[in-house]
């Protein structure tokens, strides 16, 4: 077994374990910490695939900013354990088979698409962040600018929504 495959299985197990823990934990803060484990594992998987910039952004923006925001809100609201109700038991009975079915369907469909592509395109070029920057600021410069407007609107929306009415 080569090193890359070993690392893939290590981080894949870490990601799936974190995701399972996210669902099975009943306290939201435990779920949030599990989600951070998933995100770190995914960042390692991005590195394994040669996407250094995305791995760095994943750590900085997802694990750093978004999850801090989540933890902050959980602390602020003093969220406790979720209570079990009849509806949540029913959702479990329905949700688990539907989830397994959906996962199998997705895995079958998406990996089938990959293997048919692999036959035509076997060449893998090494990327670097410079190429990504050129692509982002030349070809995708208009969507990039649009996202800055989106962020601005999101900031305004968050301020307006969270403001206490006087």
């Amino acid at each position, binding site marked *: 077994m080569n090193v*890359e495959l070993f690392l*893939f299985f290590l981080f*894949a197990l870490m*990601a*799936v374990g974190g*995701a399972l823990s*996210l*669902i099975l934990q009943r306290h*939201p803060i435990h*779920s*949030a910490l599990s*989600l951070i484990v998933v*995100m770190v594992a*995914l960042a390692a998987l991005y590195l394994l*695939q*040669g*996407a250094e*910039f*995305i791995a760095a*952004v994943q750590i900085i923006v*997802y694990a750093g*900013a*978004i999850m801090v*925001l*989540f933890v902050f*809100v*959980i602390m*602020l*609201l003093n969220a406790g354990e*979720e209570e079990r*109700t009849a*509806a*949540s038991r029913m*959702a479990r009975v*329905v*949700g*688990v088979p*539907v*989830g397994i079915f*959906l*996962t199998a369907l*997705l*895995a079958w469909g*998406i*990996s089938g698409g*990959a293997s048919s592509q692999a036959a035509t*395109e076997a060449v*893998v070029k090494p*990327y670097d962040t410079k190429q990504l920057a050129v692509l*982002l600021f030349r070809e*995708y410069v208009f969507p990039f600018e649009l*996202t800055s407007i*989106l*962020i601005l609107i*999101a*900031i305004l*929306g*968050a301020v307006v*929504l*969270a403001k206490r009415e006087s």
Partner: protein
Amino acid sequence: MVPASYYLVLSAILFGLGVVGFVFKRNIITIFMSIELMLNAVNLAFVSFSRELGSLDGQVFVFFVIVVAAAEAAVGLAIILLIARNRQSLNVENVDLLKL
């Protein structure tokens, strides 16, 4: 090299777990975290396809998805804050005014 289909199956598993969490969690914050998990699974699929096809466009898409997720988290958490303030509860079953 690890085949791209391994990554895609992992991405499908994570997405499925996100869907399951979305369906049967009752806490609104945890439901929101399940959505983030699904977005992450999609990002993994984008990066794998980007490597598989030898094109960087997938990574640019991941960048945009992360930006949109950040904006979504900011607005979504503000909404959660409002709901918690108005209803004194984080359980989604208490937020059912639109239900018949």
